[in-house]
């Protein structure tokens, strides 16, 4: 990459065309363009509308349970013997992950736009559950597209969505994971443009989604920044989050981007290792390309065909990443590192036993990075990590790997 001049602020992106440097943009079929422009206009208005913001904040407090606590993980800190470790407890949110922050925001927007039908894609099922939840709360029908492979490995979440009144459509195309679900949701949207709102679950897709989802998730970082200042009187040395599409990570990172002293680390799914295609490390082992409406780092072959990837965690099993992460990587503001399946699995077990918190497999990747990093840091240093989801949904997957039938 060429040397790009350092911007005055890392927080001003994207530009009006939805670009973060060369990343982002609006690579969609013409059918969707008018909708995306309409959505952008409506989002601009809502963003600056105190009534919208108040409704969002009220639901955040009383429905989601915000602010989520910032927790000092004393025993993990002692165990690792280095930096002080804090967790932003997004797993305590209603529905068990950060996904609900974005869903509440977008359903308010859908309502404002007069849309009467919600569609969503889901990988692990966390976004599907969050979408089904807000659709139930606002009385709108909801269709969730989910890869057939994921339907199988995330059965409890499928049942949750159905209980909430959503229709779950298994997608068999491709390898039946998140990318295929997203293709199918886009097809639905192209077909039902008039009444349908597409509730994208991560900070990716065509502009304005990456910006909008980030802004709905930035509540994580804004709270965390205030909370750590309150607890420690200073900013953390490192913030860490797992990255699939990257919404929990960008939500934590964004409010810290202009704090020069804060190192930012995104953790990608290294799967079985970066040799070959059994991973989902788009930045560490992929290259820039265009998929699902944006330019970003992707797993692809020499012909520009998208590869399937692999992760133990369904939520990270996506061959791309939000465009803002690609930009933050290329300008050097954030660092992205891979964590393998087995490392995440060990971290999952360690945290469960040391802190009495069963994390989801997605943030288990971030925990594994904390485990590597903390011992090398001084005891006066601070790591703040986003504990983005709880692990109840994953106990079946973990049980299977550990040879325990459930």
């Amino acid at each position, binding site marked *: 990459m060429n040397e790009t001049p350092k911007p005055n602020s890392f927080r001003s992106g994207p530009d009006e065309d939805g670009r973060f440097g060369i990343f982002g943009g609006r690579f969609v079929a013409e059918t969707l363009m008018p909708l995306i422009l309409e959505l952008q206009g409506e989002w601009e208005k809502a963003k600056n509308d105190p009534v919208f913001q108040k409704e969002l904040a009220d639901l955040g407090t009383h429905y989601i349970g915000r602010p989520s606590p910032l927790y000092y993980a004393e025993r993990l800190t002692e165990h690792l013997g280095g930096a002080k470790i804090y967790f932003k407890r997004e797993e305590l949110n209603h529905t068990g992950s950060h996904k609900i922050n974005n869903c509440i925001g977008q359903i308010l927007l859908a309502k404002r736009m007069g849309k009467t039908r919600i569609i969503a894609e889901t990988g692990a099922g966390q976004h599907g559950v969050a979408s089904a939840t807000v659709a139930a709360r606002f009385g709108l029908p909801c269709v969730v597209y989910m890869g057939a492979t994921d339907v199988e490995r995330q059965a409890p979440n499928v049942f949750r969505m159905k209980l909430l009144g959503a229709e779950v459509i298994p997608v068999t195309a491709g390898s039946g994971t998140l990318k295929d679900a997203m293709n199918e949701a886009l097809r639905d949207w192209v077909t039902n443009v008039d009444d349908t709102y597409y509730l994208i679950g991560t900070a990716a897709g065509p502009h304005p989604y990456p910006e909008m989802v980030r802004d709905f998730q930035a509540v994580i970082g804004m709270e965390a920044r205030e909370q750590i200042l309150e607890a420690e009187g200073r900013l953390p040395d490192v913030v860490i989050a797992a990255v699939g599409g990257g919404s929990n990570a960008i939500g934590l990172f964004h409010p810290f981007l202009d704090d020069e002293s804060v190192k930012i680390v995104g953790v990608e799914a290294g799967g079985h290792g970066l040799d070959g295609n059994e991973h989902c490390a788009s930045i560490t082992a992929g290259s820039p390309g265009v998929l699902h409406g944006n330019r970003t780092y992707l797993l692809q072959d020499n012909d520009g*065909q998208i590869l399937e990837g692999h992760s133990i965690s369904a939520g990270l099993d996506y061959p791309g990443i939000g465009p803002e992460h690609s930009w933050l990587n290329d300008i050097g503001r954030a660092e992205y590192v891979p964590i393998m399946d087995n490392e995440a699995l060990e971290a999952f077990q360690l945290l469960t036993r040391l802190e009495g918190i069963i994390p989801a497999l997605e943030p288990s990747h971030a925990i594994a990075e904390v485990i590597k990093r903390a011992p090398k840091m001084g005891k006066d240093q601070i790591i703040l990590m986003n504990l983005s989801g709880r692990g109840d949904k994953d106990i079946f997957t973990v049980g299977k790997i550990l040879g325990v039938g459930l």
Partner: protein
Amino acid sequence: MTSRMDTRFAKLKAEGRPALVTYFMGGDPDYQTSLGIMKALPESGADVIELGMPFSDPMADGPTIQLAGQRALKGGQTLAKTLDLARDFRKADNETPIVLMGYYNPIYIYGVDRFVEDALVAGIDGLIIVDLPPEMDDELCIPALAKGLNFIRLTTPTTDGKRLPTVLKNTSGFVYYVSMNGITGSALPDTSLISGAVARIKSHTDLPVCVGFGVKTADHAKAIGAAADGVVVGTAIVAQVAGSLTNDGAATADTVAAVSTFVRGLATGVRSARLVAAE
């Protein structure tokens, strides 16, 4: 240089009939068979060829074309080989316009400048890139137009009068009106709506307007042909290919014949349509 595209549409206008624009997937199910299909298209009455470039994630296509793309990729098709198809075809036919249709990423990875050059050398006349709306014109549209490739744009019922000039601004060759919202290969739309929409587009441009998505029979082709400068048939042709294959997805002796018989039927329909009152 008068382009093959302009020459072809001028000729059809003189004949007073709409164009039959036929889509097939390059490399489906293998290179040689799809070359056979491509050669059979003009012989069967196709006036313009849309050559599909397979992509792993065709977001705006229905299951029929998705599966065709998967078959082609499984058969080893690449963007370079799709250009080879055109090159091989051009050895015997230097008149039928060829439009490449597909998604941007394989082109982006191939390299835009190299792609435009190689496409011209291969005898390509135009491009339809589904996921490059006018907002993204700097990516490929502008470089392609500068070198003499047509950039054909899709307009849809959601493209309102305000947006139409934006969409048409850098369009050349013809305008491809997607006659209904939705993915390729869905149900047939109302033809009276089509003539209105075609008239609306024509009030903004002198380019021919071809209508696609949903044409399955000679009667459909005739009805739409009466209202437009061209009829685009894609999914129904790809379905003919699919229907002729073995259970393992391999070509049979019938594959090329199935397509050419079907296209011949469409051509009869199109040729019996009359252009709407020439303006």
